[in-house]
């Protein structure tokens, strides 16, 4: 307990010192982070060191420590990580049938400025970089976070493309599938139906991408209360709703930047989901390894059986593939100067490969856990089912595989290797 406290305090002090040297534009973010750190520190004092929130701490600290990222990226990710560890602990959430964890978690994330990470300060956000935001999503995946954090981040990002300020509160993006279309009517109102919209019911506002009869693309801020919402649940038990807009007048509507289209939005959403899946797989590997080192069968730890070891090695491989594909795609978007075939390859390959890993890796995690992993009481399903559910958002792996296959064939056989080697 004392050890934990000391570490929290040192960490907070260290970050305060660091912030003094940070370059100026992130003033609001810094203020928010200081608040969040203090908050996280306070919460940590209430927890015991053995709480499941600490499970992943060394693992993740390890993961971050050597990364060649800017210090500020570490601070944003570590802040998110700390909030999740304190307020989104899988075990606590799993036992909480009334959902009492949601409000304090969302409040802490909001106070830290994380939901509007990708919105500049002059548009009401905290002005973090794309890379910082992506690292928050990786952390969110590692904790299988079930509040509309990724969705609000994406919505804020979408609105920011058209310089529309983001309001407070939960948001999500419409549409969330490459097959659904929202239309801008001649009178400026919006119509259309979008299925599988994550957290639509929880959202106060929607960031909508729509196009008119001539194909001009617009971005709009819409009051969620003006839309019809049919509620649904995804495999992970999170909201996945159908949103219908019937001549809804948007609060604000502006033209999308030149070249911005629905594919761009889907790929950004897909990369977000890829990072979340990769994060969930990291945690599934970690809890599976730990469980195999505890569970005894046939008078020895099951981790000592070669069949179990090889299954876990395969899970590590799937986790590694997802991590590599997702972080590579995020890096590609961060450094993209234009939206070309190379960025498309990175983004869709991540979605395809992470979705495949969610199936294979999640299956192994369950196999290692045996019956206990199939129960409501155990936390494994929080990761395994969410990873499976995230496959469906912003275009499934089979959808994008067809699109990628078409692109590759269209470029021709001799242009395949140059495309792969360009990354």
């Amino acid at each position, binding site marked *: 307990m004392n050890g934990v406290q000391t570490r929290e305090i040192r960490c907070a002090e260290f970050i305060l010192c660091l912030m003094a040297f940070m370059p100026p534009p992130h003033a609001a973010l810094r203020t928010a982070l200081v608040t969040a750190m203090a908050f996280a520190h306070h919460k940590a004092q209430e927890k015991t060191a053995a709480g499941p929130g600490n499970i992943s701490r060394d693992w993740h600290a*390890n993961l971050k420590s050597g990364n060649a990222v800017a210090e500020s990226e570490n601070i944003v990710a570590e802040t998110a990580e700390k909030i999740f560890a304190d307020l989104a602990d899988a075990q606590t959430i799993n036992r909480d049938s009334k959902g009492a964890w949601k409000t304090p978690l969302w409040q802490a994330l909001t106070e830290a400025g994380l939901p509007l990470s990708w919105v500049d300060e002059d548009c009401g956000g905290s002005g973090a970089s794309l890379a910082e935001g992506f690292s928050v999503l990786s952390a969110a995946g590692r904790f299988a976070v079930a509040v509309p954090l990724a969705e609000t981040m994406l919505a804020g990002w979408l609105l920011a493309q058209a310089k529309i300020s983001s309001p407070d509160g939960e948001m999500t993006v419409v549409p969330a599938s490459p097959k659904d279309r929202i239309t801008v009517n001649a009178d400026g109102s919006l119509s259309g139906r979008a299925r599988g919209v994550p957290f639509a019911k929880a959202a106060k506002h929607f960031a909508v991408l729509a196009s008119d009869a001539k194909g001009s693309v617009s971005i709009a801020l819409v009051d969620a209360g003006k839309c019809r919402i049919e509620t649904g649940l995804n495999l992970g038990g999170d909201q996945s709703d159908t949103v219908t807009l019937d001549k809804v007048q948007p609060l604000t509507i502006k033209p999308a930047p030149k070249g911005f289209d629905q594919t761009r939005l889907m790929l950004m959403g897909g990369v977000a989901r890829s990072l979340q899946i990769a994060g969930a797989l990291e945690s599934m590997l970690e809890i599976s390894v730990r469980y195999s080192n505890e569970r005894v069968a046939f008078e020895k730890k099951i981790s000592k059986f070669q069949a179990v070891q090889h299954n876990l*090695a395969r899970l590590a*491989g799937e986790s590694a593939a997802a991590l590599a594909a997702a972080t590579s795609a995020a890096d590609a978007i961060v450094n993209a100067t234009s939206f070309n075939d190379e960025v498309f*390859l990175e983004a869709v390959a991540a979605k395809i490969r992470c979705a495949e890993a969610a199936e294979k890796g999640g299956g192994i995690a369950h196999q290692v856990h045996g019956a206990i992993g199939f129960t409501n009481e155990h936390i494994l399903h929080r990761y395994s089912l969410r990873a499976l559910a995230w496959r469906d958002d912003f275009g499934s792996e089979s959808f994008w595989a067809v699109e*990628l296959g078409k692109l590759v064939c269209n470029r021709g056989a001799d242009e*395949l290797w140059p495309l792969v080697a360009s990354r």
Partner: protein
Amino acid sequence: MTAALRFDPIRLPNECEQLRKEVRAFLAEEIAAGTFDPHQPNREDTDVPEFSRKVGARGWLGMTWPKKYGGHERSFLERYVVTEEMRVANAPTRRFFVADRQSGPVLLKYAPENIKMDILPRICRGEVCFAIGMSEPNSGSDLFAAKTRATKTNGGYLINGTKIWTSSAHIADYMIAIFRTSPPTKENRRHGLTQFLVKMKQPGIQVNPIGQITGQYEFNEVVFTDFFVPDDHVLGEIDGAWKQATSELAYERSGPERFLETYYVLTELVRAVGTNPDTRSAEGIGRLVAQVHTMRRMSVSVAGMLQAGKEPVVEASIVKDIGTVWEQQLPHRVRDLAAFVEETATNRETLEKQLDFAIKTAPKLTIQGGTTEVLRGIIARGLGLR
């Protein structure tokens, strides 16, 4: 607790792209000159010594080694580009590949200065071919069960025993082999093996080719009878070869050759399908491309870690595990899709021939250079399970 896996998104630096252009131009010239046929996957059937010398003359062998030994002091990432371009083009690399990847670095680390000065510049010029003497008739994956004896004699050692599955032994000028210098101890069964440099093509060594199911004669049985190895050909610590083996595996296991071995069938499938694929072909190709892209990003990431002086043993084992399983399955997945290729596709025959060869090649890919089972054992140890 286990250490977290790391696969940072390493990008090849700009100088690599200039190099890539040079390598592609060189390969195009060689193809045009008829040195090799890029559509012919069994590249190892033709032994092309002059190709090796040309690659050496370009400065593409020993790229990362010190200049005093003929090397070029370039980065692992630059070497990576050369390796992948040669592999994708089906270039005949057999003569120099093992020396450049594996044997040279072992000599750099463990050979006496006179040997280094003698052999390394010749590797860099593409003049010498190396083989690796690990497996024996009764020890394959169980490397440390090797029995071939090295008995101390005046000024060196006498070797007696048999190595097997030794690729390229029939054309090799040298072999780096492990021989037993002492029995294993109770405490350490890996004790007692020593790494040696062996000059091939001498009395006392008999090389017997072994036919493979692909129709090739690529590997061999190598029989040593009272074969003399001088003292200065000992590489590293007597009885301590086991200490030298593990950290080098990262170099051997994570390169582009570990997932591109059957890549040619994917290119040929795309050619056969044409520019307007049906949905099934498009989906199949899309998934395979997403998978190979991911493999490559993982492999480049490991190359970047090696360049940074790290020893990503577990990450490298993961790359070889999923890379070789992937390249093993690839011809079968391409075969599935090839069933729908139009009769009129002009490269149909080429694709079918390539598939035959790739499907026959596939079983060895998860065996050579460390079986899947051995790799998963290493990964499991890294995860803290053993």
